[in-house]
């Protein structure tokens, strides 16, 4: 940075870059290899070649095979429906609660706050069994509802919004009340737009978590047409539908990984914020420069 002398042309820098570059390549290796295998003829992969030679024909074969054997697009649509529904409901529920906790004094507020904090620390594996039993009794297993319902309450979202809303100036709220805003209008028209970095980061946090989740769909979903991408791919791998076609399996992997990876590359800042949100405090407000 600033204090680096320019006249030291840097054995250190060369070595550092060499180490980091090799490490980065190892980190990226599975991505690269997955993509390569998905466009390489079967036989060549099985030969254990060190360098693969991709071909358009093989790419076509693999992707078409994958799409014809497993409803991958359907899985992705399911994933999108589930993630978007969860996100919208989470925000609809968490934002007003976050606002109430930040700005409205009401009896029971400390109790609710305690509940929220406990709620955000309990991993899904703990309430999973009773939730499963409840959904079974309600006849809701194997449905979108089963995939969505347990996650519409996000203790984490409430906590995050509360932290963010708490910094909103009280005088502006008073002005809004005089201007005729209802409390709900304050949430939707003032709080959320002003807290949009928090909303964006939370959206990333939520979508990444639920797009990638295998645990819950594995428990509640049996019907292939309701499977989410990870469950669908795991099933595709195990069921023998891939018929040992590694290229096709990798093609499936590429397809379900691509949306988030592409989004990540375009919206890195929000991704990093969103993924590291679980830092108890509000990282968006930390005095650190952007990272």
């Amino acid at each position, binding site marked *: 940075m600033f204090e680096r002398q320019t006249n030291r042309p840097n054995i250190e820098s060369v070595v550092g870059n060499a180490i980091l570059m090799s490490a980065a390549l190892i980190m990226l290796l599975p991505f690269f290899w997955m993509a390569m295998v998905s466009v390489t003829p079967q036989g060549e992969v099985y030969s254990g070649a060190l360098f693969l030679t991709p071909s358009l024909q093989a790419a076509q074969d693999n992707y078409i095979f994958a799409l014809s054997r497993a409803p991958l697009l359907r899985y992705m649509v399911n994933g999108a429906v589930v993630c978007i529904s969860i996100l919208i409901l989470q925000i609809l529920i968490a934002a007003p609660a976050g606002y109430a906790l930040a700005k409205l004094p009401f009896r029971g507020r400390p109790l609710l706050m305690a509940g929220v904090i406990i709620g955000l620390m309990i991993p899904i594996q703990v309430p999973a069994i009773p939730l499963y039993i409840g959904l079974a009794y309600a006849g809701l297993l194997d449905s979108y509802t089963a995939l969505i319902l347990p996650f519409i309450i996000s203790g984490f979202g409430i906590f995050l919004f509360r932290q963010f809303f708490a910094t909103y100036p009280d005088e502006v709220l008073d*002005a809004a*009340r*005089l*201007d005729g805003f209802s409390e709900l209008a304050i949430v939707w028209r*003032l709080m959320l737009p002003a807290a*949009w970095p928090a909303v964006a980061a939370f959206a990333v946090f939520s979508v990444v978590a639920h797009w990638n989740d295998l645990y819950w769909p594995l428990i509640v979903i049996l019907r292939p047409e309701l499977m989410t991408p990870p469950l669908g791919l795991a099933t595709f791998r195990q069921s023998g539908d891939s018929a040992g076609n590694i290229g096709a399996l990798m093609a499936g992997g590429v397809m379900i990984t691509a949306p988030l990876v592409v989004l990540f590359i375009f919206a890195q800042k929000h991704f990093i914020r969103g993924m590291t949100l679980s830092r108890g405090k509000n990282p968006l407000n930390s005095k650190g420069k952007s990272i």
Partner: protein
Amino acid sequence: MTNTIKSLRLANANTVKESDAIRQSSYGLEVHNVTKKFGSFTALDKVSLRLEAGELVSVVGPSGCGKSTLLRVIAGLEHGESGDVRIGGNSVTHVSPRERGVAFVFQSYALYPHMDSYNNIAAPLVMRELSALDRLPFIGRLLPASRIKHERIHARVNEVADLLQIKDYLHHKPSQMSGGQRQRVALGRALIREPRLFLLDEPFANLDASLRIHTRAELSALQRRLGTTTVFVTHDQTEAMALSDRIALMFAGKIRQIGTPDDLYRNPVDLDVAKFLSQPHLNMLPAEITMSGRALIAGEHVPFADALKPGTHGIVGFRPEHCRLVPRKQPHTFPVLVERLEHAGAEAHVFVRLLATHESCVVRIASYQMSDWQVGASAWLSITASEGWYFPRAARRREDLLQNELVSA
């Protein structure tokens, strides 16, 4: 509603003389015996205040005296433990802030940070006159009825923007504007819905000095034209003196005196009031009133016009302009030592110390006279007998006046 704005535009175009501007608002304000406590702290102690329709009253006092709380109680943002607030004769004590029809300009302006000026100004109308359906992002514009509403709001925002000359930055966000511009936008947001009352909480505090005087004049003219009853809170007595029809002076949760600027300046009810309205500060000398009714100050008998109660002790207060320095001893003067001279533009202040009692006083002189006095020189202080007041210890100077003013409400 729109009539006012029309008349404003006319006024703006100078087709109507200032004197013709109609005082339209017919809403007076009465605050009756309001008490407000925060825990054990009493912010407002049986405060009563009455404004005639169209009047501009400043509430002045040191910070923490309860003046902002009073404004918030009037707006309905705080609720007093007891007492009543009436707007236009109707009690609003149990009416929510949004239904009181008051506009509030906050010290911080409290603009909506993510909205541009246009939307800030439009917000009160959007929230009051549009239904939830009208407000929907796209659908709202498609319904014919709501399109008309949107157009009407658009027209009114433009009228207000014209009036306040803020058209150039209608599409700037608060963070992109200067303090003065933000202040105008905040004013626009208050004006647009033609409120029954304007409540202004130190609206000039964040402006620099020259802009403050300019804006003050504009606000005064605007208020006169609109004729909207206005309560103006400030800690700056000069501002209050310059703007107000009347001033209410608050100390520790109570209104100590209310009256025209001139009345307060010339006739303070007590020492606090006199002190608050003096610059740079009030001169105070302990005095004893002899049985014959003469004031004995620092061993001198001084003639004094104010009512003096024989046989009492108290304080004589006089402003820097109520005394002068003379180079030679004269009757009823005190020998003093010149300690310090301060230039203050047209005038200057001479700080002196009484040789007899070591009390210090400040004397106002014209600045061109500064060369007449040197630090360390001796001089004689003469108090103008017709000015200045006597404040008996532990009593108000003018009990009568306080009674009359406050109980009339």
